């Protein structure tokens, strides 16, 4: 049985012609999306991926000291290693010293334990004159790090090519010689404090933003156009002002001899010689950050409230509800998508904030992002910065996931 093929006007079977047309459309779509996709890939996905990859990549040192790590494998880490291990280290380090390639080791090992940098540098100078026997003795004479078993333990801990040690360090844990996970020394446990403080600041700033933004947004959404436009400009004006300018203005306002304190004294709420401290503590951080992040809460709330018909509240009241009940049962649930969007925005922005708390927060103004910046810029320990960054990213994604489970992400509404 032969069915008659339907032909299009140019003589091709319809099926083929249709596929051709569809392919063309698909290609067009791809060309439209392509540039953005490529742009994101080049400027966003790839650099970030490359950066995060550094947190586990420890191949540099493994490749530079192969003999040492092979020799250290059986060493138990209790007493100083024997002659063979010192000799293996000599075999690795000597060529590096001659070809001036040992520099990268100094910093890498100094992250592991303070003191490696100067110890290795001195060894680098002296090793060229070493005699070809009795390596242990010669190393021990060169620098005190070679007389200290802790440094050998630290060295052994860098042996694996791929390492999760930086992640442990991010939560104040470390490895002991037997590679068990133990707590960091007590006076160096700093990261847990910073994580908790970061979460606390972000949480409270979100709450404060919500409390302030809700009535403002309501006003914006219900006022007649000519007033609400003016109010909208008041909300947006700070939004267009540089972050640093706004933070500095808060510093002027909040300082002990500043206008707000003058007002408090003038009102008789505090004595002149006992002015309250509004800055360089947690109060300053909350005030400045709340003001700076407020628009991110107002805008989504406003756009959601704008869509709620006023007749809904009237209907609620005409059915016998008090204004409060009508608000609670009708209005508030309708604004939840806006609250969700605003809170998520503010919280995620706040969690990565650091300039404002650093300037007005005083001793308590150091957050986890300040530590990341320190390791990026100052200590150049990029792998640790990458590890902390990954942890922050995973944290934010977790919050997003929890939010999705509780509220549902399709409930979010930005406008």
């Amino acid at each position, binding site marked *: 049985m032969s069915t008659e093929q339907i032909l299009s006007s140019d003589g091709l079977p319809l099926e083929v012609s249709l596929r051709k047309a569809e392919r063309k459309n698909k290609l067009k779509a791809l060309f439209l999306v392509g540039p953005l996709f490529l742009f994101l890939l*080049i*400027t966003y996905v*790839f*650099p970030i991926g*490359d950066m995060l990859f550094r947190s586990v990549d420890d191949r540099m040192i493994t490749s530079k000291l192969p003999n040492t790590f092979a020799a250290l494998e059986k060493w138990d880490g209790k007493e100083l290693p024997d002659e063979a291990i010192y000799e293996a280290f000599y075999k690795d380090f000597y060529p590096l010293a001659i070809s001036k390639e040992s*520099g*990268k080791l*100094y*910093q890498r090992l*100094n*992250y592991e334990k*303070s*003191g*490696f*940098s*100067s110890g290795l*540098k001195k060894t680098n100078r002296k090793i060229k004159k070493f005699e070809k026997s009795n390596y242990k003795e010669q190393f021990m004479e060169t620098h005190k790090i070679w007389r200290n078993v802790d440094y050998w333990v630290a060295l052994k801990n860098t042996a694996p090519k791929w390492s999760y040690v930086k992640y442990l360090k991010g939560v104040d844990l470390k490895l002991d010689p037997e590679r068990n996970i133990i707590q960091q020394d007590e*006076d*160096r*446990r*700093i990261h847990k*404090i*910073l994580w908790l*403080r970061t979460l606390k600041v972000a949480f409270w700033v979100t709450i404060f933003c919500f409390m302030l933004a809700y009535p403002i947004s309501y006003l914006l959404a219900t006022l007649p156009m000519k007033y609400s436009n003016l109010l909208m400009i008041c909300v947006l004006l700070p939004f267009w002002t540089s972050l640093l300018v706004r933070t500095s203005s808060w510093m002027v306002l909040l*300082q*002990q*001899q*500043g206008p707000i304190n003058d007002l408090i004294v003038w009102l008789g709420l505090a004595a002149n010689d006992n002015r309250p401290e509004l800055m*360089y503590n947690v109060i300053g951080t909350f005030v400045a950050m709340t003001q700076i992040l407020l628009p991110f809460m107002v805008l989504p709330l406003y756009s959601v409230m704008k869509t709620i018909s006023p007749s809904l509240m009237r209907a609620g009241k005409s059915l016998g509800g008090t204004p409060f009940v009508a608000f609670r049962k009708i209005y508030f649930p309708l604004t939840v998508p806006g609250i969700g969007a605003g809170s998520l925005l503010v919280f995620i922005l706040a969690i990565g904030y650091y300039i404002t708390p*650093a*300037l007005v927060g*005083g*001793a*308590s*103004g*150091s957050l986890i992002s300040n*530590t990341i910046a*320190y390791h*990026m*810029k*100052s*200590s*150049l*320990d*990029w792998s640790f910065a990458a590890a902390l960054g990954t942890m922050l990213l995973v944290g934010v994604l977790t919050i997003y996931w929890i939010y999705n489970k509780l509220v549902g992400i399709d409930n979010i509404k930005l406008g």
Partner: protein
Amino acid sequence: MKKLSKLLLALSFVLSITTSAFAVTVVSWGGAYTESQKLGYGDPTAAKLGIAVNWVDYTGGLSEIKAQKEAGKITWDIIDVYAKDTIIGCDEGIFVEFDFDKDFAPAPDGTPASEDYFTSMPSKCAVGNILYSWNFAYNHDNAVFAKKQPKTMKDFFNTKKFPGKRSIYKGAMSNIEFAQAALGTKAGKGGSKIYDKLAADGGVDKAIAKIKKLCDDPKGGCVFWNAGAQPPELLANGEVIMATGWNGRFFNAQMEGTPITQVWDTQILDYEYFAMVKGGPNDANGKAMKVLREMTSTEGLAGSAKYIAYAPWRKSSIAIIDAGEPWYKDGKTSMVQHMPTAPANTKSYALMNPEFWADNQDEIGEKWEAMKAGL
């Protein structure tokens, strides 16, 4: 993977290259400081050699140049850096190692460059630029200082004698040295004893405990500063009674009429250096080296002191300033007495020890932050 990522990073940096690719790019800290460098030796050098010099601001640290290097497209030639950064940059192979006496001009009397400088360099990749000082200052209009004034570092920590808040640097650097001096270690000339004590077992802990005591004291208390402009401001508006800071900033504030007095006991002399980027755009053609040689010459370094109270590194530059007093740009202020190296100011001082900090900065940093977190 590695090649592709390099290529992509390179692409993004290619976009940042401007038409000034042929000028020698010098990177520094901006503000009044870069201004003093540009007017003091940047412009004269450019005029003399006929090589354009382009100034770029940054906020310190080696992250940008490391990123440029990894991307394989370097746009900076010369960077103004801290001592510890020259050490790290040298180890990481970012900077050029100098052949000091060959690369840098001798003094006018023929003294080789290495002997004309006050001290030796922290690494082979560094050439000195200015000396500045970490010292402290107080607002002499404050009633606390009506009868007696602070004279020593111990006074800075004495809250019975001088009750009121202090402002100190947000990091451990400078603070633990000051604390060690307040614990009774004399700095003398050079301060090596201070670093010996700090390097000993538990030394840093004791110094940090001393700071904690000052900050916890209800009669004391600490405000941490992080920008150089803050200490004079905090003193001027009465937020604190005493503050540690950089002498050039205190000097500029004094010139503007702020009622503050500087105390030079146990000042910490610190340095700024130039380092030259290996493989920079003007490395191979030698232009960067020519510019650097000219800027760090005797006249070059003396030039910047016209605009800011930081001391030039070269002894021979001081002679030029001395002969040309009043040297400050206003035409009536003598500069030498305001410099950290003036004899009246160097009765007791410590030289910042970059090796100590390169070794210990991370460990001390963690202990310091842990202390601050417990305040």
